[in-house]
């Protein structure tokens, strides 16, 4: 139970570098599916770099909260990422927090993101904050139920232990519990990362945007941190999904194993990204007040998953 500093650094770098790539892939593939050429997968890196170099314009109504928020959002997402096992079966900071801490950190980021949206006093920002917090509130029970299901099976909320349990022979691949919990978490993933049936990440259409509305007043390096933080958060949630439910190829130790683990992990991640792309392309955005219906379906799936844990012995 000691801190492994190289692990921490490695995973931090991996999180920082991989997150924009995943976002870029999703954007590119989505365009391809819609018969457009789309931006190259590296575009997100270029965007971030450009944002960093630009001057910052801050609203004159905004207070110190506005400038603090991007740092909190970014660091909270990064920290949450260090609590998840990515390529290896042990999360580098698993001593510091379990899956509940991860959910808490993501909520912390969201809290400050919403405050940042309110601070400049623009109606768009307020609207975005209001919707973001509402959707998060209805998504949270579904998320927790799905997590509980897995945690109860593993007897622990420690993500490393959950993943190790998933690798053990006790794990059943075709267990309906996992299928339903996965489906619930997938819906939550779509909601939390602002994907299409819930929010449209590509739009700046005033009345439908949620996440973009909160970022409207951000510019320069603040915008870069916000966008980067959002893509890290997306990566963290996707990692959670693939590594809890498909714990193949998580490396134990040794550089070769780790390298292989990274490759397998990337493959799983891209497969999940492809699933997200397909959902995004084949569905239309829901009206705001239909979103709770979707999330209540996720909640029911979570409940069913939980029921199944002790009824399908």
């Amino acid at each position: 139970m000691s801190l492994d500093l190289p692990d921490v650094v490695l995973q931090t770098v991996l999180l920082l570098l991989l997150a924009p790539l995943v976002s870029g892939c999703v954007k590119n593939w989505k365009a391809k599916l819609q018969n457009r050429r789309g931006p190259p997968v590296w575009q997100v890196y270029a965007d971030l770099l450009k944002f960093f170099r630009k001057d910052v314009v801050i609203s004159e109504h905004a207070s110190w909260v506005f400038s603090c928020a991007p740092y909190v959002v970014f660091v909270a997402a990064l920290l949450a990422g260090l609590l998840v096992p990515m390529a290896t079966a042990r999360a580098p900071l698993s001593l510091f927090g379990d899956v509940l801490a991860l959910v808490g950190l993501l909520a912390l980021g969201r809290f400050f993101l919403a405050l940042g949206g309110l601070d400049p006093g623009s109606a768009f920002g307020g609207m975005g904050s209001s919707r973001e917090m509402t959707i998060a509130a209805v998504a949270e029970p579904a998320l927790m139920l799905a997590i509980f299901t897995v945690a109860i099976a593993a007897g622990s909320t420690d993500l490393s232990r959950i993943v190790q349990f998933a690798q053990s022979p006790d794990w059943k691949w075709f267990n309906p519990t996992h299928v339903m919990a996965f489906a619930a978490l997938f819906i939550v993933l779509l909601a939390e990362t602002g994907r299409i049936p819930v929010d449209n990440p590509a739009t700046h259409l005033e009345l439908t945007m949620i996440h973009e509305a909160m970022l409207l007043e951000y510019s320069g390096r603040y915008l870069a941190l916000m966008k980067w933080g959002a893509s890290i958060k997306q990566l963290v949630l996707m990692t959670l999904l693939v590594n809890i439910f498909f714990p193949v190829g998580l490396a134990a130790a040794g550089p070769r194993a780790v390298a292989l683990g990274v490759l397998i992990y990337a493959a799983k991640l891209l497969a999940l990204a492809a699933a997200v792309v397909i959902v995004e392309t084949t569905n239309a955005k829901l009206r705001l007040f239909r979103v709770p219906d979707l999330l209540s379906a996720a909640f029911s799936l979570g409940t069913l998953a939980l029921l199944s844990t002790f009824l399908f012995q």
Partner: protein
Amino acid sequence: MNAPSVSADLGSQLITLMAALMLVLQLLLVVENRVLTGIRLYAIQSLFLAGIAGVVAFFNNAVDVYIVAALTVLGKVVFLPWLLNRQVRRIQIVQEIEPLFNAPTAMLVCGGLTLLGYIVARPFTGLERLGNNTLAIAITLVLTGFFLMFNRRKALTQVLALLTVENGVMLAAIALTTYGMPLVVEFGIFFDVLVAVMILGILVYRIRESFASMDTSKLNQLKG
């Protein structure tokens, strides 16, 4: 043929999984407002039913169950959805009107019904061999099907709900008693439903003609 005992566990897992997916589809059907999507969901649900029949047939070497599976695919995955689709196009409905309970409440009710189904099926869980615990899902399908039937007002959705009830009955039949249940009975159920749907289809059309609506709650206008 491999020895069933080795992979019987796999078979059991597959059956449980597919049964669970049938339940998930049923819940989606409860919240789905578009009739066409509803029909598609029903088709997928039937496909899983056929899959379960196939797995049961494979692990028991039961030829007659293969026939059931094939018939399910033909009748419920292909023919009935096609029939209903045509019906929908003919009378041009797209969306269900506001149901009795809104989606979250309906979900809550269905959750309760699922729990009830599990409780009712509990004493029997020790009895069956292969698809254990599918009885719970079968009962739940029947219960939620009934709930769906009175939650919706359009005749066509009610037909769809009836079909899911029937799927529940079939699931119970296939997964639990298929080894003893004569093929004839299954044929009987199957064709009963087929005929019922066709009659209902015609009725739906007539209701629409006479009332310019498919809202069955308008039938109370028939009172003198």
